[in-house]
């Protein structure tokens, strides 16, 4: 056999194997290193700090867990959140992340390594990303082979779509959840392939971990049953499927019900009914198979018809009945919003107001996945070509996740692993084909590869996995699949002539493709590094801008303001702000907040929205009723920080309108022309709203008679700014991003604060008259 380039000879297979596995281990270690290292941009560019919003809560909860122990954490009632309702944290939180950090923290301390809990939290996500790379390797190995696995591991290690959620400091549930997701899927595939109750149970254990860690576990809960259902519909029911699924479902469901926040949901909500239904269907199918082996075919057929009919009717009736009765909770709004993208905006503005719940923009796919997004369909096609049971899984996963990623930005995260797997399969097939030194034999007719997908699936799977992989790697696909038939029909090769020999000749043809691929990979690495360092490593608690000489300038207004609160206000001072900043205030300022990022109570949020969007006179009783001492607003007009409260203001109005449609109406906040303005053409309601007043209070003074320009909205503000009667300005940060106002106490003389203020300024009050005690007779 001729080869395109010389191969070393005389190596024993054992040596080759050992070297290969050593290389694999080294490669995985390097991938892990790269995955961790690229996530440290955030620490190097900024500092070791917890990022964004939700991580601050997780960090705070972890501190409680680490200092007080698990049972206290479980029973933790947080009186400072959602004041005065409080939050039963232990029962409304996915404790997996905190428990993981707590365990790591305790182990390190048991080893006499006095690591700060903050560092554990900051570095947890990078650490788990290395594990994710390994889990993806294992998963992809099941799909194709080790080399594809290594590619997939490298992809997931540095792909921005995953890094965006797992940089150092991004201490969120997703940090560990993607690892759990991939490992659960790996165990499921393994259980399915081997029919192993052991792997099914391991899958269930990791499923439990996933349930404890992230609300996205519902994805697994529906993904695996869907896979099982498709297998059954394709007539691929087997005892391996039965054993794998049942052991996963029974153990996993019972385990997931132990998480307090989940409780009885697995048996009472629509989201989980699919898994239960497939479990029931599996029993029926298994029973049918059993009956078939004992009955003649005609008897069996009539029995089957009647049985299917009855079971179908009874099952559907039971489901509908229970749903109507309320035993099974109907689909939640979040679920509907997945299918109808306009649903949330109409009915649940609070979900629609979150930026990561918006539909994904097309460039985001390229930004997050770069060339993987082009390889991804190719990989899915390769899965179709082989179509073993596990490939079906990837196909279903790919179809679902692509849809979801298009609906919501944050679900890009769920798509990323399957993109990495599919792309790795495609790319490694390409590389296999072109690196393979075997020269095609020109003289002889080419022998098709040994894989035969027309054989029954059961048989196909029984061939040893090694053989299957070899066949898959061997190059030209078999001619008999529908897809290749299609390709053959459209290709311009004449039918009559004998097919010309296919294959790759010479080293140059190989090099062209291989070098091209390598350069694509290089560009991918550069892209990932660039995106990670520039776009995804900002903590968003600390902002960065560039000085004129190009050096970095840190804008630290948030922490400045939060520390001011922490050091200048009584510990019980209640701070009202829009819910985005609730966790940060609780975490950094350690003060009670009215609402926070755990948006469980829409009415309470609407109350805050109402206070922000009404006039001072209306807002003041609300503030007093909720014991609010300070009001905090984010204002970007001076610096040009576009994520400020005025830009979020319409959402506050909408959410408040949802609860008080008579008092708050969105159109009132627009100009008659329908524009959203803050300058002197702004509508009266807008100008009188508390949010507007707090944002622009004394803003014009800053410009000393010059035109006061809001740099976010590019509008010129009136020279005479708004006045405040019920609030006092307490603190404004260096760049005016955070402004804090103190709520005034009631006037000691019982006047309303507006006239008290007028009196204080020495304005003459209009002489009031005694009230007539008798009504004039008309």
């Amino acid at each position: 056999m001729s080869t395109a380039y010389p191969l070393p000879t005389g190596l024993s297979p054992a040596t080759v194997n050992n070297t290969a596995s050593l290389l694999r281990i080294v490669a995985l270690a390097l991938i892990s290193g790269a995955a961790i290292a690229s996530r440290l941009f955030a620490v190097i560019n900024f500092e070791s700090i917890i990022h964004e919003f939700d991580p601050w809560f997780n960090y705070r909860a972890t501190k409680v867990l680490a200092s007080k122990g698990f049972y206290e954490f479980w029973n933790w009632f947080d009186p400072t959140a959602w004041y005065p309702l409080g939050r039963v944290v232990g029962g409304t939180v996915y404790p997996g992340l905190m428990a993981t950090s707590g365990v790591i923290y305790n182990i390190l301390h048991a080893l006499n390594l006095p690591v700060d809990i903050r560092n554990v939290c900051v570095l947890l996500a990078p650490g788990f990303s290395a594990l994710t790379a390994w889990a993806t390797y294992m998963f992809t190995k099941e799909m194709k082979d080790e080399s594809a696995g290594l590619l997939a591991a490298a992809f997931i290690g540095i792909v921005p779509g995953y890094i965006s959620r797992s940089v150092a400091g991004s201490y969120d549930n997703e940090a560990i959840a993607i690892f759990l997701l991939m490992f659960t899927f790996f165990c499921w595939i393994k259980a399915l392939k081997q029919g192993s109750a052991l792997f099914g149970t391991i899958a269930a254990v990791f499923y439990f971990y996933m349930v404890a860690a992230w609300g996205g576990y519902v994805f697994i809960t529906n993904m695996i049953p869907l896979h099982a259902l498709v297998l059954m519909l394709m007539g691929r029911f087997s005892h391996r499927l039965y054993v794998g699924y049942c052991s996963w479902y029974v153990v996993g469901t019972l385990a997931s019900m132990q998480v307090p926040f989940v409780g009885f949901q697995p048996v009472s909500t629509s989201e989980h009914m699919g898994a239960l239904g497939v479990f029931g269907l599996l029993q029926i199918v298994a029973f049918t198979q059993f009956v078939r082996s004992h009955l003649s075919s005609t008897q069996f057929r009539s029995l089957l018809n009647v049985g299917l009919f009855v079971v179908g009717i009874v099952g559907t009736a039971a489901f509908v009945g229970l749903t109507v009765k309320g035993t099974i909770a109907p689909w939640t709004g979040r679920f509907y919003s997945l299918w109808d993208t306009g649903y949330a905006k109409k009915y649940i503005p609070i979900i629609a107001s979150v930026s990561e719940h918006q539909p994904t923009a097309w460039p985001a796919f390229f930004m997050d996945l770069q060339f993987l997004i082009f390889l991804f369909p190719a990989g899915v096609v390769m899965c179709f070509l082989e179509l073993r049971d596990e490939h079906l899984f990837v196909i279903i996963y790919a179809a679902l996740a692509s849809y979801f990623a298009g609906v919501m930005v944050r679900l890009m995260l769920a798509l990323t692993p399957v993109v990495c797997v599919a792309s790795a399969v495609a790319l490694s097939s390409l590389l296999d084909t072109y690196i393979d030194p075997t020269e095609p034999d020109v003289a002889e007719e080419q022998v098709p590869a040994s894989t035969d997908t027309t054989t029954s699936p059961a048989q196909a799977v029984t061939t040893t996995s090694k053989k299957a992989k070899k066949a898959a790697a061997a190059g030209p696909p078999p001619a008999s699949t529908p897809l290749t038939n299609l390709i053959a029909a459209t290709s311009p090769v004449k039918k009559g002539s004998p097919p010309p020999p296919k294959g790759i000749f010479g080293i140059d043809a190989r090099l062209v493709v291989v070098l091209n691929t390598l350069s694509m990979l290089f560009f991918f690495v550069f892209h990932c590094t660039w995106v990670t360092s520039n776009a995804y490593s900002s903590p968003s608690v600390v902002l960065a801008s560039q000085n004129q000489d190009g050096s970095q300038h840190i804008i630290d207004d948030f922490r400045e303001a939060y520390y001011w609160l922490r050091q200048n206000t009584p510990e019980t001072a209640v701070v009202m702000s829009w819910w985005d900043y609730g966790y940060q205030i609780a975490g950094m300022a350690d003060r009670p907040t009215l609402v926070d990022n755990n948006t469980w109570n829409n009415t309470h949020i609407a109350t805050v929205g109402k206070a922000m969007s009404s006039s001072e006179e209306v807002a003041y009783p609300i503030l007093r009723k909720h014991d609010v001492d300070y009001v905090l607003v984010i204002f970007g007009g001076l610096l040009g920080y576009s994520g400020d409260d005025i830009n979020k203001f319409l959402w506050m109005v909408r959410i408040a309108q949802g609860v008080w449609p008579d008092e708050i109406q969105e159109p009132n906040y627009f100009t008659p022309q329908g524009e959203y303005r803050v300058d002197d053409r702004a509508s009266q309601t807008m100008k009188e709203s508390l949010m507007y007043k707090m944002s622009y209070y004394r803003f014009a003074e800053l410009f000393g008679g010059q035109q006061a320009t809001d740099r976010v909205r590019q509008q010129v503000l009136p020279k005479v700014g708004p006045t405040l009667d019920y609030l006092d300005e307490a603190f404004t940060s260096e760049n005016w991003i955070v402004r804090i106002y103190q709520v005034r106490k009631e006037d000691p003389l019982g006047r309303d604060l507006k006239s008290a203020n007028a009196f204080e300024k020495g304005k003459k009050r209009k002489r009031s008259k005694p009230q007539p005690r008798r009504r004039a007779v008309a």
Partner: protein
Amino acid sequence: MLSFRGLFWLLSGLVALVNSKSSAGDSVLVVVEPNHRDNYSIFFDGLKEQGYELTFRQPKEDGPLIIQDDVPNFSHVILFASETKNLGKDITPQSLVHLLSLNTNILVALSTKQTQLSSLATEFSLILPPPGTPLVSYFPERQDSASLIPVAITANPVVSKDLPPVWFSGVPQALGSNPHLVPILRAPPQSFASEIDGGSADALVEAAEKGGEGLWAGSQLSLVTGFQTLTGSRITWVGGVSLFNDELAQKEVAKGVKSGNAQFAREVAAWTFQESQVLRIDRVEHHLVNVTEPKEQYTNNDNIVYTAYISKYDVKTSSWKPYSGLTELQLEFTMLDPFIRTALPPVAGSPGKYSVTFRAPDRHGVFKFVIDYKRKGWTHLHSSTTVAVVPPRHDGYPRFLSAAWPYYAGAISTSIGFFLFSALWLGGEVREIKKGKGSKAE
């Protein structure tokens, strides 16, 4: 914090014991024209006898200042210079309101002239007639001018009712809707405001036309009006300064009956200077039934004991005495709205102690124990203690429920069944090994 406050109360109590009569301090600034000072000797001497330190100041003088560096220099201020337009730089309507918020008490006399003080009166929801229109009454028939009126004391929360009538000459005040007002002396029903001493009738008519009918007339008018601010300080508006002078104090209202002026002035000053009807909450306690230690968190449906200790200032001994006389004290347990509102009755046998036992609501959240006692003439009592009510702990629920027996039975029977089945299966395998193999082969 609490002990510090206790110490503070103790110290102030000690100071009071030595030389003061008022619960708020004993230094008094009197702003009065020097040539009129002797006209009020009975009133001022009475105050001095009680232990007050009077400092006199002329209205035109600049010192002593009433407030310096945001700290009041005197505990009480008497403004008798009612006819003076300007009272000096530091005595402005704004600074007087500021003094009140710093817990200084003020006794103000008004006059028929338009001064700063009459514009300040509007801030207290007092509506004065136009300038130059004092109260006039032609009943009962008497020798004196129509604007010098004997006024009988009617029911009021401040002054004792059995005093003889008092002579009054000055402006009446109509009362606005402010709940902090405490009318002390009401005008006689036959009296009205009129332009007797040189004011213009037009102004009165105009004001009357603007406001409707029946203005500044009748018993709805107040002549001496107290006002208690939210901070507890008190200010009393007296329609005419002559009420305090020696001449009217000596004047008879009927044959052989001296007027009640001296005693009335004394009692009004006592109320204004926080000698009488002064209450305070010494401390509050809350704990579970049969426990003495308070908890930071209570669990749903806990039985909670709430206790408040209330004292009243006793002017005779200049000290705080436990006081059990409040019969309508209420306790609220609120989270946004009161979940529980219950009477807080005095405990028989332990003076000053008010206590109630109630069951916490079946709702978790941050609750407040609130006492909010506001009665006219009395110090407002307000106390708010924040406490969290939490759901039961994970092991705080009952372990076995009788209602769950069907489930227990199901679990137990399944376990036993599985055990029996396993035993039978394992035990029976030896005999049926061939059959089992056959069926398994498929």
